[in-house]
């Protein structure tokens, strides 16, 4: 029987009621008294020298309060990068300045040049149009390989080139890897592109800055996945506001997918300007603005090779990737193609030798940073396309080739610096095959053929490192932040519980699932537990939500704090029942003395904690509130097997997804309904990447896919009902809940399944010359590959 409450139950989400009735409170719903509005004048050229910004005509326009330009930010810090990568030669990456408003040059379409603060948004925009710019347009670099040519225009004049870093991993293994390739019985090679994506959370970004003249306190309301990180980065590195004078609030946030991790110029601007004009300042992005300012994702160009011995065992992998950073380093950009990508190149396989080379490149495009999966989808796509290609070249079953090379012994130390604690890749593959009726495929293919369609089946595996992650480890790898998580559990006198978590929910349902955990541990109804998040004023310093880390890291902190609560409550209960602390048991909200019929209720104990009349005051403080910071000792490693069946219309190249199945091992699951929902969403994003989505620039750096008219978002009729399963469970060995995280899996595992299926369909249709098609597999691209 499925559980009806607590850990493992599909509890309905409590946050839904406010969202379903229009009572959510998103950042754009916040309007402060006396609020002014800012409009950013942005560069419409990709690269140019900013000779003059003449605001004189605009200053006198109706409603204008003040116009800011780069000059106003000369003494102010730039937007910081939170991760420093060290290159193959031991040198730090090249790290350019990133001013809040452009100084000297503009480097991508959308780079903010001036900011007009006015009484209304329309007046601000009117005045921005009256600013006269003298921009000397410079040749733009868009293509990464061209950007690395010695004669290429430089995005940043003060750097030696457009190369951010040339990273080798593991550099010491390079010679051994090369040797393995020279001895290989078979080598499979694949060149591919991991297409650039725009995250497109449905809520565009918003920032409202406020300043209290009386107290000198600044407050920023912002669409963030991690308000404490913004407070630290913006306070310490940009504006010089100490954290105790700065509050950051991220209320209901309409989706993030990584794009709302980063600290953006508009947040710093609104906070800065509110203090400068002594009035609240609000900015609401339009979708058009989002396309040219939200950090993009992916954008890797890769050559990957697999060496196999005569028995089809994988002996070595070698990759060379060009990773686009865009015009500036976004907050965590350098980590994505390196530590979140190179470390995953072993995948689910025993490959003894791996060498990953990544060249990160500056171009005149929007900065690129983490987007759902961040580095891991890129690694998975390369590896799982490559293994499929190898199976085809060798004439072996792609599932058999995978199984033959699966890692089966745990813990397993990969040659790329991580240790998988647990997993069972055969179990998820077995489950997947059970779900998809592989034996029935030929009959389905025959039916498709009768309808004039080509049917194909794609299967692949994935592994991800998430629950990001141990501070000591990421510190060694260049992170300039810790990656613990925090929770304060506050029990009130009448027994109600408030959990203040450093995690942030922007769709993940923490208000429900986190409450399930605490309610289960104490044995009280879930409704008695309230989850508070998103406000630095009332939550402990937390690192926020990304990298599928909330339940694994944030949930663990909450468990640790709750354990402290239970420990103290037992002491109080022991005192009340005049028993020994060691004999106290807590079950269903009742404290009992083992072996007796004595009991006190949860509420008796909590009341005693706050009305300590009969209380061991000499040994124990009153009150019942505990905080824990949890820093894991490893990543978690969710893994699984995915399958996609497609039909290709040979006349038009159009691909239709017939079915999609996902068998995941997420370790223990707190709320199966929410976990399935996370997988569904990830799958749609992965299918979107595979078939529809693409950020496209022309050679001058003009964005061609600048609205939903040209950037294809997955819609309801682009996807089928999915089959998802998470019944294969190998609990994480190193966190108290045994959980691994589920937020990114769908987006990581699905693109190769789709592409593998399309290639399979074309081969079955006799088009054996098609070894690969770069994503997105639009009808036009599939058709031209068929006829190529």
């Amino acid at each position, binding site marked *: 029987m499925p559980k009806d409450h607590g850990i493992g139950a599909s509890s309905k989400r409590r946050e839904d009621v406010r969202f379903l009735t229009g009572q959510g409170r998103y950042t754009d719903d916040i309007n402060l008294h006396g609020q002014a509005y800012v409009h950013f004048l942005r560069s419409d050229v990709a690269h140019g020298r900013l000779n003059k910004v003449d605001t004189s005509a605009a200053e006198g326009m109706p409603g204008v309060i003040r116009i800011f330009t780069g000059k106003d930010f000369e003494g102010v810090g730039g937007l910081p990068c939170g991760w420093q990568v060290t290159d193959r030669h031991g040198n730090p990456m090249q790290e350019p300045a990133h001013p809040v408003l452009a100084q000297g040059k503009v480097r991508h379409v959308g780079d903010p040049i001036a900011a007009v603060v006015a009484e209304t948004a*329309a007046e601000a925009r009117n005045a921005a149009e009256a600013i006269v710019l003298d921009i000397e347009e410079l040749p733009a670099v868009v293509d990464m390989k061209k950007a690395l040519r010695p004669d290429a225009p430089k995005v940043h004049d003060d750097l030696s080139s457009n190369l951010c870093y040339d990273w080798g991993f593991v550099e010491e293994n390079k010679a051994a890897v090369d040797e393995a390739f020279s001895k290989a019985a078979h080598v499979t090679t694949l060149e591919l592109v991991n297409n650039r994506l725009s995250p497109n959370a449905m809520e565009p970004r918003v920032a409202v800055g406020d300043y209290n003249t009386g107290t000198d306190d600044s407050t920023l309301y912002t669409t963030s996945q991690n308000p404490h990180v913004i407070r630290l980065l913006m306070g310490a590195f940009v504006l010089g506001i100490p954290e105790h004078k700065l509050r950051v609030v991220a209320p209901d946030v309409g989706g993030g997918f990584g794009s709302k991790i980063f600290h953006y110029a508009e947040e710093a601007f609104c906070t800065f300007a509110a203090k400068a004009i002594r009035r609240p300042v609000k900015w609401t992005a339009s979708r058009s603005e989002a396309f040219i300012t939200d950090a993009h994702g992916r954008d890797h160009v890769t050559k990957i090779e697999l060496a196999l011995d005569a028995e089809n065992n994988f002996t070595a992998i070698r990759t060379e990737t060009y990773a686009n950073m865009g015009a500036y380093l976004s907050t965590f950009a350098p980590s994505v193609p390196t530590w979140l990508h190179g470390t995953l190149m072993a995948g689910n396989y025993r490959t003894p030798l791996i060498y990953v080379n990544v060249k990160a490149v500056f171009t005149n495009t929007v900065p690129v940073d983490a987007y759902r999966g961040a580095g891991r989808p890129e690694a998975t796509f390369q590896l799982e396309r490559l293994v499929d290609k190898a199976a085809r070249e060798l004439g072996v079953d792609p599932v058999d080739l995978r199984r033959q090379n699966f890692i089966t012994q745990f813990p397993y130390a990969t040659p790329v610096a991580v240790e998988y604690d647990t997993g069972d890749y055969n179990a998820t593959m077995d489950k997947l095959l059970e779900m998809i009726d592989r034996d029935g495929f030929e009959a389905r293919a025959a039916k498709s053929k009768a309808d004039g369609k080509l049917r194909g089946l794609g299967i692949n595996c994935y592994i991800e490192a998430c629950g990001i992650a141990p501070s000591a480890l990421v510190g060694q790898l260049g992170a300039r932040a810790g990656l613990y998580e925090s929770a304060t559990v506050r029990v009130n006198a009448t027994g109600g519980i408030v959990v203040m978590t450093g995690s942030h929910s922007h769709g993940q349902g923490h208000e429900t699932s986190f409450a399930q955990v605490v309610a289960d541990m104490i044995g009280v109804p879930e409704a008695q537990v309230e989850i508070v998040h998103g406000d630095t004023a009332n939550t402990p310093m937390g690192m926020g939500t990304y990298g599928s880390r909330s339940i694994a890291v944030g949930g663990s902190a909450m468990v640790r704090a709750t354990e402290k609560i239970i420990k103290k409550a037992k002491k109080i209960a022991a005192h009340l029942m005049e028993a020994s602390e060691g004999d106290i048991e807590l079950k269903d909200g009742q404290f009992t003395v083992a072996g007796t019929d004595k009991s006190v209720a949860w509420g008796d104990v909590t009341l005693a904690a706050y009305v300590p009349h009969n209380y061991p005051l000499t040994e124990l403080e009153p009150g019942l509130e505990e905080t824990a910071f949890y820093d894991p000792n490893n990543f978690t490693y969710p893994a699984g097997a995915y399958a996609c069946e497609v039909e290709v219309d040979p006349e*038009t190249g159009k691909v239709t997804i017939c079915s999609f199945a996902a068998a995941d091992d997420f370790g223990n699951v707190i709320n199966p309904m929410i976990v399935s929902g996370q997988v569904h969403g990830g799958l749609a994003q992965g299918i979107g990447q595979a078939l529809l989505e693409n950020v496209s620039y022309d050679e001058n750096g003009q964005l061609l896919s600048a609205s939903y008219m040209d950037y294809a978002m997955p819609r309801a009729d682009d996807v089928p009902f999915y089959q998802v399963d998470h019944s294969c469970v190998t609990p994480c060995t190193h966190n108290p809940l045994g959980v691994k995280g589920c937020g990114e899996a769908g987006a990581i595992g699905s693109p190769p399944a789709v592409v593998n299926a399309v290639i399979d369909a074309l081969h079955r249709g006799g088009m054996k010359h098609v070894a690969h098609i770069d994503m997105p597999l639009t009808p036009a691209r599939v058709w*031209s590959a068929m006829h190529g």
Partner: protein
Amino acid sequence: MYSFEFAKPKTIDEAVAALAGEEAQALGGGQTLLPTMKQRLAAPATLVSLNSIPEMIGVCVNDAGHVCIGGATPHAVVAREAAAHYPALAALAGHIGDPAVRNRGTIGGSLANNDPSACYPAAALGSGAVIKTNTRDIAADDYFLGMFETALNEGEIITEVRFPVPQKVNYQKFVQPASRFALVGVFVAKYADGVRVAVTGASSDGVFRWAEAEAALNADFSKAAIDALSPPEGTMISDLHGTDAYRAHLVKVMTGRAVAAA
């Protein structure tokens, strides 16, 4: 949006008068014009709404058997009310944009805008429709003058569109995956006096008639007749959603499918 004066006439005459003003612009359903104005790419001094003129809304059949659609009739109304008289036209209207867009967008607005990827121009040209304005009747063959260009004069309003009903007809739309406009749309209609094949989405000259296909279908109204043709030549659009060669190929495929389904 820039600021503008707003007028909401109740009759065609009032609308014509309002549109005579300096930099006045007619507003149909606004599903294209309002987004354009939000981007500040259009800045009329006065916007004249045509949405409250009862004589311009509705579907009827005239004595000649033509289906007559008021210029301010939303797509959703056409989809419902033309279904009994001209099912292919109703189906086309029922697949423009999305349901919410269909409740606002109007036939007159679509034809006045003449987006090269819109569906209605294919229906009007493919049906040999007559575009009635406040001053004259314009044959569809004389109306479409190129991408976003029409025979309408300044201030001229489409009051009604009259569609002769064909013997056989079908519209095939292959959607551009982002906008869901037609990447290529082909409207094939067989009348007693000949076959008309109108193509939208494909050409940078806007909607056009594919003469070779019409000739082939006049001789033999079958998919095989289309299969024997080369894809049309001309100024095909090449963009991030498809090359000119791909669009030309799709024109042929969609024409064949329309003939088969007609």
